[in-house]
């Protein structure tokens, strides 16, 4: 529904289709018939937010309850934001066109640290007080979940409730509690206190933080009976877990414009830089029957002709070939193509290749992450160069000529030789192309090498690591650029400035809230976008708040330091992370979950890969 004030602005902005709703399968309810209005906010543009699977799952789940109306809200792009402010139009929800100011819940999904300013900015645009303590009534409850909720401290002053772990159950439990409290005329404080008793709920205002003289955290002290440790929630039976059979189908093109089927959660690999690999343990698979049914239904209901099998490492699905066979039984006739993102170098076999290119050919992307074998051992990316070349050879013989390779620079123990090894690896892939007898005739090969700068993240074995300086990162980028001698390799790199800011927030503590507040006052937004990001401006903010950002990004921590996220439990023990960290510095890899259990702690959830029968034992 388009509000008439909004209508006046639409022809003055780029891509107005982002601001109108009305898409196929969008859920419109009668507001008189519902008890709970939930604004599901994605702190980025429509095109980015609409590509996010978590939002699709929770949107459908919430709306499957007749007493909840969940609507979508995205950050308006700069031109629209400007006009909305000028015309006094508060941030509104797409389905109803109503301002979200007085909604019961304002929920944010935290996918990346650089979206934090957008969270605050969206509250501001909605005329909602940004500080939790300034929202006194039992409405406008601001909640947040997603991967960045694993270190929620930099935005702890603004959010009433963080959901720790997977949201399918805990979100509804909190909504139901709110409904009950509302009926009983309870206060916001009472509601928050009761909510804190639900497993997976973190109410930051119920914890006092004290600091040591050196500014590190001394302790987190719970108040009002809140738990000392907050345990994550997770879904153990993926076949039984709610999954939407319908997506809102956008009318304007979005980033990932296709059906998405989640095939498992977690990752067996344990790459030491990868936060997701630790947060979502243990690996829990959906059965191939469930995937097949859900995929088919999704394609039928949305009209998408492409479905992506999503997970952290799709070729690690235990019955991947069997699954693709099953899907191919209908997908070919119905002209649906299957795509497999997150393919591992060692997972791309002839068999898989033939099955995913039956209808359409997608690009090939691999992530060796580091150039030298030594460094790959450090980060536990158990991929051998031979495997990569072998895989590329399979691809080249199968007609591919474009390969993208992703790497990180600034990893622990990295030397300039390791950086140069990235160029060498790219060169070896190019050489491999010309060794392939069945390569596409008359075509040249194009290898794209992309590097991002390593950002140490909480709950990984590198959570203690002091990030490289921006200068060091620039030098490494330059060195890599100079080490590439062929035009067949294209080199792209991510801006090191953004990685620095990301590192500050990723391991920040509550003291950063001040800076966040100031940044919001100054109108910061879209930090993840080159259009808006300015490290200089941020450094000014830190200075004004008397905060040294290097303390968070650059400082090497000791194992015995109390970390700002130590009171959250994601299943992996700190002892395991320490063991992994020590092994990393000895260049020693750890075998993956299916080869050998490394006793990370996730077995306490009593399911998933931890209780799978291992092939070498049977």
């Amino acid at each position: 529904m388009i509000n008439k004030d909004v209508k006046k602005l639409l022809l003055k902005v780029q891509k107005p289709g982002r601001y109108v709703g009305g898409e196929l399968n969008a859920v419109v309810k009668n507001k008189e018939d519902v008890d709970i209005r939930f604004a599901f906010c994605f702190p980025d543009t429509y095109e980015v937010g609409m590509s996010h699977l978590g939002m699709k799952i929770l949107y459908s789940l919430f709306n499957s309850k007749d007493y909840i109306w969940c609507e979508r809200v995205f950050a308006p792009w700069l031109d629209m934001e400007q006009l909305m402010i000028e015309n006094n139009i508060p941030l509104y929800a797409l389905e109803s066109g109503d301002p979200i100011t007085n909604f019961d819940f304002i929920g944010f999904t935290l996918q990346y640290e650089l979206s934090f300013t957008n969270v605050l900015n969206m509250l501001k645009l909605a005329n909602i007080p940004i500080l939790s303590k300034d929202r006194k009534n039992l409405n406008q409850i601001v909640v947040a979940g997603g991967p960045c909720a694993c270190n929620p401290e930099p935005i702890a002053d603004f959010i009433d409730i963080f959901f720790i772990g997977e949201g399918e159950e805990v979100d509804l439990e909190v909504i139901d509690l709110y409904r009950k409290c509302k009926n009983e005329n309870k206060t916001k404080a009472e509601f928050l206190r009761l909510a804190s008793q639900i497993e997976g709920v973190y109410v930051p205002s119920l914890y006092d933080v004290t600091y040591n003289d050196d500014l590190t955290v001394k302790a987190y002290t719970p108040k009002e009976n809140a738990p000392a440790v907050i345990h994550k929630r997770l879904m153990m039976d993926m076949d039984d877990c709610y999954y939407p059979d319908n997506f809102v189908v956008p009318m304007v093109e979005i980033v990932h414009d296709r059906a998405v089927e989640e095939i498992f959660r977690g990752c067996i690999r344990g790459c030491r830089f990868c936060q997701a690999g630790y947060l979502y343990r243990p690996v829990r698979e959906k059965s191939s029957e469930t995937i097949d049914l859900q995929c088919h239904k999704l394609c039928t209901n949305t009209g998408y002709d492409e479905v992506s099998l999503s997970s952290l490492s799709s070729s690690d699905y235990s019955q991947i070939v069997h699954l693709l066979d099953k899907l191919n039984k209908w997908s070919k006739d119905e002209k649906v193509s299957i795509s497999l993102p997150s393919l591992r170098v060692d997972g791309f076999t002839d068999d898989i290749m033939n099955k995913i290119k039956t209808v359409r050919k997608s690009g090939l992307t691999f992530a060796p992450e580091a150039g030298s074998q030594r460094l790959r051992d450090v980060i536990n990316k158990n991929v051998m160069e031979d495997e990569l070349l072998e895989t590329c050879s399979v691809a080249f013989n199968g007609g591919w000529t474009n390969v993208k390779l992703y790497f990180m620079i600034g990893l622990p123990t990295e030397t300039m030789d390791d950086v140069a090894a990235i160029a060498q690896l790219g060169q070896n892939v190019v050489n491999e192309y010309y060794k392939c007898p069945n390569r596409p005739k008359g075509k040249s090969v194009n290898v794209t090498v992309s590097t991002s700068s390593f950002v140490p993240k909480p709950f990984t074995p590198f959570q203690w690591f002091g990030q490289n300086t921006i200068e060091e990162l620039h030098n490494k980028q330059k060195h890599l650029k100079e080490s590439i001698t062929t035009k067949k390799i294209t080199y792209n790199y991510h801006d090191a400035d953004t990685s620095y800011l990301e590192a500050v927030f990723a391991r920040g503590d509550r003291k950063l809230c001040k800076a966040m507040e100031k940044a919001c006052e100054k109108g910061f937004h879209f930090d993840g976008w080159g259009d808006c990001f300015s490290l200089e401006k941020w450094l000014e903010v830190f200075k004004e708040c008397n905060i040294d950002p290097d303390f968070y990004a650059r400082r090497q921590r000791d194992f015995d330091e109390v970390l700002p996220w130590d009171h959250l439990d994601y299943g992996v023990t700190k002892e395991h992370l320490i063991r992994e960290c020590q092994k990393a510095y000895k260049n020693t890899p750890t075998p993956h979950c299916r080869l050998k259990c490394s006793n990370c702690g996730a077995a306490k959830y009593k399911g998933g890969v931890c209780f799978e029968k291992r092939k070498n034992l049977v």
Partner: protein
Amino acid sequence: MKNARIWFKKQDECIYISHLDLNRCMLRALHKSSLPIWHTEGFNPHPFATFALPLSLGFAGENESMDIRLLDDDYPFEKIITDLNACLPKGIRAFKVTEPVMKPGDIAYADFKMLLSCDSVSNDMLLNICNELFNMDEILIDKKGKKGVKQVDLKPSLVKYTLERQIGGVELNITLPAGSTNNVNPNLILNALKKYYDLIVDADTTRLNIYNENFEEFK
């Protein structure tokens, strides 16, 4: 194989999607509907569909058309309407299916209805200004084309029109040249109002119908 021309309206939220997005949206609806239609046979097979005359972003359309090829000659036209509407966003509604008579290349004119409104002047004033503009001897405005900006005279195109004071603004009904050879976008009138009178005028624009060079309705 049989050609079919599907007539639809583009309104409400859907006026804000571009022609490219409309195309994508239609292809997806065709795919979802499982109508027996011919697919292209190239590298990326997709349902074959062409549009008679693209509609600018921001315009509603009363009589828009899309041509497809039916594999099943006996497939009832009525069913195409219901099948497709079940798969389309509610702002796009198919209402008629015919066998194509004219070619899209025959299109020469289009009828538009525009409700003009302006915050800075009264509606009576706006009506006077519009009348004055339309009676000028020459209305020169910049038109952006593929080969850059060139100046055109709007005057010769402003032949068949009515201007009326309405609640909420001034209603302009106008027939303008349309099609692949000479196309005049009604927004150029807004540009002229800006240029000659420095007025920022908003318009609710609907394309009502399209015609061939003999002013016969496009069929």
